[in-house]
């Protein structure tokens, strides 16, 4: 009796195992060479689609914006009673969200709307993970001209729109007014790095006696997008990481700029590199100035007020070759996943346009310091509340498109950070480090980007 019973169980178990193995075998990539072609609907077809009743939004809540996002989602659900939005925390930064979204591609369920930073959306577009949204925007009655032209223009590739701007920022020059005052230098951001280099020794000397004081200037932590903020120094001296697809990291001007950076740390000793978060170092009174994202503005000013510390902000300093247009934009946009249904994509389009309309973008801007992305946004109320916010908006007019080497090469940002580590922390030879960097970046371009651009 027991024999037949156990045998039956055993066979059942074996069957279940085979089933599981067969199911699991569905995952993983195919090697037959034929990628799945992306299908999108025409504007006519979109108008016949009924939006799905539930979608998901994966975010890292940039600039500590979780509460704002929850409120915006509630407002969206009130305006669109048929659609429910699930907010998913995809990690604590853009990279962790990207990791989750890309891993999700191997399964059957992907988030509908995803936060994608400047270095990720292009990769998604090339790999087919996201949808071009031109027709979708039309279907929900939104035009690209409703957005700031520079910010929405960043997401164009092969004449298609791939994202809408959402949590967009520029770096800002943050400084401790009391430290500047103690040194007798003007309480403003320097116009150029040359000017700051003149002030710096005095600033350091005047504040050296206070406990825990380290440097006049703190470079942002390498792990926190060093390649992004260093573009400012490079551009000011006429250098760049790249010009379009041409890698210029080892050009004479680029080498001179990075040499200047190394000298400020090693030779002149008035600058340091943050271990974790430069803006925290500034708030701790350990440094007199730093560069950080405008997303940190609201939180930094609030913390400074509580600590009775006077913090000022200004445009990024220029350099010997260029005094303006030396500031990159950054931050993230919203993309719509391709691996879902038209119903969900239409609901997603309604959601992303709501999250970036004039009213929503104002809510996010005032809570964080991100740029207002909608043209119709009226910033006067935010400026009345936080006068420093005007600097953020004004600087947007003099920004420059980021170097392709950082934004469009997979792992490019990581390579820039590696080179920056060598130059800034290990005192490596600047010229040879940048020459090596160029070789690596060209290798990535030829292997991972060039073939896909032609296709």
């Amino acid at each position, binding site marked *: 009796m027991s024999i037949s019973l156990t045998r039956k169980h055993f066979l059942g178990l074996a069957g279940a195992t085979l089933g599981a193995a067969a199911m699991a075998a569905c995952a993983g990539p195919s090697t037959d060479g034929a990628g799945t072609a992306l299908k999108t609907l025409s504007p006519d077809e979109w108008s016949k689609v009924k939006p799905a009743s539930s979608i998901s939004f994966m975010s890292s809540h940039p600039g500590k914006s979780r509460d704002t996002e929850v409120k915006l989602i509630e407002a969206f659900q009130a305006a669109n009673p048929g659609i429910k939005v699930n907010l998913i925390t995809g990690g604590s930064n853009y990279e962790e969200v*990207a990791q989750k979204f890309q891993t999700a591609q191997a399964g059957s369920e992907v988030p509908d709307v995803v936060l994608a930073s400047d270095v990720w959306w292009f990769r998604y577009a090339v790999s087919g993970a996201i949808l071009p949204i031109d027709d979708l925007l039309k279907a929900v009655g939104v035009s690209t001209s409703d957005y700031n032209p520079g910010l929405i223009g960043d997401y164009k590739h092969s004449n298609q729109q791939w994202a809408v701007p959402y949590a967009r920022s520029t770096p800002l020059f943050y400084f401790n007014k009391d430290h500047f005052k103690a040194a007798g230098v003007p309480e403003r951001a320097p116009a150029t790095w040359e000017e700051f280099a003149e002030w710096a020794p005095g600033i350091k000397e005047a504040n050296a006696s206070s406990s825990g004081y380290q440097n006049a200037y703190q470079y942002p932590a390498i792990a926190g997008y060093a390649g992004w903020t260093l573009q400012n120094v490079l551009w000011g001296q006429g250098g760049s990481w790249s010009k379009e697809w041409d890698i210029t990291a080892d050009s004479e001007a680029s080498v001179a700029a990075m040499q200047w950076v190394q000298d400020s740390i090693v030779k002149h000793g008035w600058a340091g590199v943050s271990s974790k978060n430069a803006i925290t170092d500034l708030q701790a009174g350990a440094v007199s100035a730093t560069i950080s994202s405008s997303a940190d503005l609201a939180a930094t000013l609030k913390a400074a007020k509580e600590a009775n510390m006077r913090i000022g902000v200004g445009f990024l300093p220029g350099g010997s070759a260029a005094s303006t247009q030396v500031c990159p934009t950054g931050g993230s946009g919203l993309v719509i996943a391709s691996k879902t249904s038209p119903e969900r994509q239409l609901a997603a389009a309604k959601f992303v346009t709501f999250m970036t309309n004039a009213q929503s973008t104002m809510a996010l801007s005032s809570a964080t310091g991100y740029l207002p992305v909608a043209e119709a946004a009226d910033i006067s109320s935010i400026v009345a509340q936080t006068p420093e916010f005007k600097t953020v908006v004004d600087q947007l007019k003099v920004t420059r498109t980021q170097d392709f080497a950082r934004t469009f090469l997979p792992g490019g940002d990581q390579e820039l950070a590696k080179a920056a580590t060598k130059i800034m922390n290990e005192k490596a030879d600047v010229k040879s480090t940048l020459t090596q960097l160029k070789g690596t970046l060209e290798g990535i371009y030829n292997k991972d980007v060039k073939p896909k651009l032609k296709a």
Partner: protein
Amino acid sequence: MGRSNTDGASVAASTAPGGMHDRVRTENRDAQSSRVPVDRPPLAGIKRRRWNRRTRKDTWVFVAFAAPNILLILLFTYRPLITNIYYSTLDWTLGSASATAVGIGNYVEFFSSPDASNVLGVTAIFTVTTVGGAMILGLLVALALNQRLKGRTFARAVVFAPYVLSGVGVGLVWLFIFDPTYGVLSWILRGVGQVSPQWVNDPKLALVMVTIVYVWKNLGYCAVVYLAGLQSIPTQLMEAAALDGASNVRRFLSIVVPLLSPTTFFLLITSLLSSLQAFDIIRIMTPSGNGTSTLIFDSYLQAFGSYNRAGYSAAISVVLFVGLLIMTAVQLRFVERKVHYS
């Protein structure tokens, strides 16, 4: 056993049966004469008869008990392992639906790039220092805790506590301690007029930092296992040696260390495996792997960092797997011979 008394090994074997001694005995027999019949065949014959006598019921009971475990191991250990080896032959971007087969291309790239020497070097330094550090310090702590001291139980608990803490929590707290700007270590150093080293930014110091934290966390494990080993050493042996006039050092080297060798062997294998798989502390303290890219962390960074090279990452994990396999085999084959079982 009818053996010559000059054969020391077989005397030991006859008095103390054990895995190693069996092997020694067999080797000695082979050395004496390969044609001398040994008492194995009858044993094997008994086994066979016993097997034949087993009822079908017994067989099915065995299958019913063993099958679920075997199936789970096959499904969740061996299947991913084999799939991973397959992935290592692909040029596959994480998240992409298609991939290109490149054969051993990923391995060729890894071993011909400067990354290989860097990653393998970091792995070797990290493994040797963490295993060596935790075992030596663990033994010293165990020796101290084996004395009759006041508050011994409390001290034992304190020493073991870090081991059961979450690695992520430990990493975060130590990161604050090491922070050169507002960390408590920099505060202490400033107090004596020193500038804090750049623990995070300097790749060499970053490796030192994670090594210190890793040893701190795992020291308790070695200490507790060594303590158990120390307590199993018969006191009469130590007393006899003391009566014979052996010094403390002499007793430690000639009695304690040899009798602890099974413990040391066990700790060596488990610590080596866990050091080579150390991830949480490294990931939390040095998220970009600056100077701390061990094999397992580099494998993670390649796939889930900004490169998204899933195939290349799989190849690195296969390198790690083969390394672990070889090391374990070597340990079982050679190191175990030197171990004394009491």
